[in-house]
């Protein structure tokens, strides 16, 4: 249990199990729906082209719009989650997603489809996806890499399941019936949202009060402080808008950009996304180009998907090992490097066996990258700022997604050479890996002496260990790596500010829902 602080209420620890497994299942399903849906809709394109007398590129816009909404509405979702809590947002998101598809089944032209199946469903999926990750980060701490890996496995599983299912629906009911039933399936996102029980903070209600009293240390002074804090708070209405709490309750916390690790991670992720999705898109055409029959070419994609299913949880397990967990960012850059090397080395694959080998290695490394991407982010920014961080990150990634694959397609059209884009994608990945590794390593070297000094000071001042327990170092590692210049100079100041913030945060109550940003799953020595 966390150490007590004078004047502060002990924060709630992540369950790391129990109900967390249900949350994991919900997150698994929502990740699956979010990533697989744009692909699953594409099986309907042929009939849509026939019904509305339009071309393939017009129908392909639907997938692009869904992806754009998923990535581009990141900050909006962050704001909404920070304002309300996770569960209502997810329930609304599920309703939006399913109603978008239901309305789409009644549309009479392609524009209505763009608006309903594209915008509304995409928005609903986005409103589901982000909060599910946030809740996962709250429910798991020690087992978080494994949880991230398992949840990320939802994407390939649903990819391989939804497309054939969509085909069956199309064959039997036609595209309208198929959309209607897909809308019904998306309603299960609401079920996943209902599962995301908020982790209650301790100052919520009488039950928590008494629980707190049971667990509090025995000094009466501390009791009094805590009690005072509680009674003081209960007289406030809402409490959220009070002056002391304002600065720690931003709707969209741009201060994540002051975290150098986050900036490095964002840049590296941007470069990564430029090249990551290109090979799976191009591999089938490339295979057909070198003479592989159609069915075998399509089988290549299923190889990638199948291996991806297993690679993700396994890399989650590896990332959770004591040896790897403190260096999970390096592990992430290693997986990106492997993916890039796979691309580059297989650019000259001229036989079907070579392509199969490429798909195997690509599946493994793709799974590693997919499983670790949010784990590293959670590690860097911590659970308090994670909602804002992921929103901003997804928005920045949106630009890369818009640029990357289409430009690769243009390159292929221009030069008629698939090797070129494999080299390009591989080099982008390698660049991203090297950048991440190098930048983190440099920052670490820079900060290590300062950090050590700062920690010493903190210990002296406060007279207690400030989360230097065995587990916390593990979690704080990447976060501590790079501090912004502002914070470095005044570690003491920031420390006391953190303490004050934590105390104030503890007192924030949300009248209707039990979810606040108050507790910290891993205590950070500095912001």
């Amino acid at each position: 249990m966390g150490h007590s602080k004078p004047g502060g209420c002990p924060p709630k620890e992540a369950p790391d199990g129990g109900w967390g497994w249900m949350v994991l299942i919900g997150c698994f399903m929502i990740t699956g729906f979010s990533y697989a849906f744009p692909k699953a809709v594409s099986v309907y394109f042929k009939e849509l082209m026939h019904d509305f007398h339009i071309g393939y590129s017009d129908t392909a816009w639907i997938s692009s719009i869904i992806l754009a909404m998923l990535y581009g509405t990141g900050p909006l979702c962050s704001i909404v989650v920070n304002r309300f809590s996770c569960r209502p947002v997810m329930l609304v998101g599920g309703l939006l997603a399913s109603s978008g598809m239901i309305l789409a089944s009644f549309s009479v032209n392609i524009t209505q489809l763009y608006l309903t199946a594209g915008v509304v469903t995409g928005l609903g999926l986005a409103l589901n996806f982000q909060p599910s990750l946030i809740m996962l980060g709250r429910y798991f701490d020690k087992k978080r890499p494994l949880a991230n890996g398992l949840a990320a496995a939802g994407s390939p599983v649903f990819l391989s399941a939804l497309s054939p299912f969509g085909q069956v629906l199309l064959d039997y009911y036609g595209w309208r019936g198929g959309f209607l039933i897909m809308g019904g399936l998306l309603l299960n996102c609401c079920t996943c949202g209902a599962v995301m029980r908020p982790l209650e903070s301790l100052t919520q209600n009488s039950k928590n009060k008494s629980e707190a009293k049971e667990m509090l240390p025995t000094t009466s002074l501390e009791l009094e402080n805590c009690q005072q804090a509680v009674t003081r708070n209960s007289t406030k209405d809402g409490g959220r808008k009070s002056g002391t709490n304002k600065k720690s309750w931003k709707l969209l916390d741009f201060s994540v950009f002051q975290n150098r690790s986050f900036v490095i991670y964002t840049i590296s992720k941007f470069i990564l996304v430029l090249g990551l999705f290109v090979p799976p898109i191009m591999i089938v055409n490339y295979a057909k180009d070198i003479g592989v029959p159609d069915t075998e070419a399509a089988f290549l994609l299923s190889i990638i998907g199948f291996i991806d299913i297993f690679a993700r949880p396994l890399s989650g397990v590896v990332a959770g090992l004591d040896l790897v967990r403190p260096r999970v960012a390096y592990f992430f850059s290693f997986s990106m490097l492997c993916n890039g090397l796979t691309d580059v080395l297989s650019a000259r694959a001229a036989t079907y066996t070579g392509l199969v080998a490429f798909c195997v290695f690509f599946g493994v490394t793709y799974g590693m990258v997919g499983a670790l991407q949010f784990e590293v982010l959670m590690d860097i920014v911590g659970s308090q700022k994670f909602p804002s961080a992921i929103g901003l990150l997804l928005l920045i990634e949106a630009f890369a997604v818009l640029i990357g694959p289409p430009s690769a397609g243009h390159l292929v059209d221009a030069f008629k050479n698939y090797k070129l884009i494999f080299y390009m994608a591989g080099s982008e990945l390698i660049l991203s890996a090297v950048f991440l590794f190098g930048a983190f390593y440099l920052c670490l070297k820079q900060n290590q002496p300062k950090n050590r000094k700062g920690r010493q000071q903190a210990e002296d001042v406060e007279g207690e260990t400030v989360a230097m327990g065995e587990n916390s170092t593990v979690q704080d590692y990447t976060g501590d790596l790079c501090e912004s210049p502002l914070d470095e100079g005044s570690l003491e100041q920031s420390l006391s500010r953190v303490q004050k913030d934590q105390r104030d945060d503890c007192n924030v109550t949300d009248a209707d829902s039990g979810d606040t940003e108050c507790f910290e799953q891993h205590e950070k020595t500095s912001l």
Partner: protein
Amino acid sequence: MAGLLIKQTLSVIFLLVSFWDQVESDSSQYATPEPKTSTDVGNHLPVVETIHFSGSSRPKPITVNVTKVTKIVLSCNLTLLATHKSPITGMWEKDGNKIDKREFDFDQNTGHLFQNYEFDFQNGSDAGTYTCVFDTNPKSEGRFEVQIPPVWTKNMKEIRSDGDHINLTCKSDQYIPLYWIWSKEVKGSKVTLSNETEDQYYIYSIGNKSSLLIKSLIMDNTTYYHCDAVYEVGFSGLRIHLKVNSLVAAVIPFVCIVAEVLVLVIFILVCERKMKQKEDLAEGEKFPERLTTDELLDSTENGARHRKVESASVQEMQN
């Protein structure tokens, strides 16, 4: 002989038409309602098709469309250099199988080699690919595709929604069949359709066109529909796939899914509320609400016993 030099010559294809005594069709063989052949009796012309080619060229195959019982003469005219050694053997093949094994001696002086093959086209089994083969070096072949003319349609696959109508049309170009047959596939076997059988189907055939109108489509109409143009010598047709989409039929599974989701969500939320209530009750028993700090500090067993004693005394008094 190896190294045979064959001069490339221009080949001109011309059609020889010679009048023959007609082969009268025996109308009792066919159960035709209207024997159209009666008007054509006496005018069955034998069809003669000739391919001219020189040794090294590969001529294009000629398609012979046959709709009536006729005699067919296929002729190949090969032009060679005079320096070619004789004798050259030749044969005819039908669909890859030898049918005429005679050896011909050919006229070396004119440099032309002829091969003729005559047969009566009576039914579909006479259709096929007839090839005249000359045993030159390399082999020279001329191909004839003898067939009953095919029918065409605009779309082989049609997709409609339920409640719509659809008009399936088959055309046979310049050949007018005796009549048209429409049928649909039901569990692997063909079921003939006609205007009398069901209200839903209406067949309209005129000349070289025939259309099947299906009104008020329902999901069960999703099958293959065959249109066959029947000639004297057989029929040719094609099958069109019709798929009927139904939004209404998808409503039932949809409602089931929605019901399942509602049940799950309500179940989860109710369970959560019950658990909360249970925990509240449990806590309420241990710690009554509105504890003050003094009570807390004082919260030893004395305090609890104190209260218990009080309540016990109250009960005693009541009793």
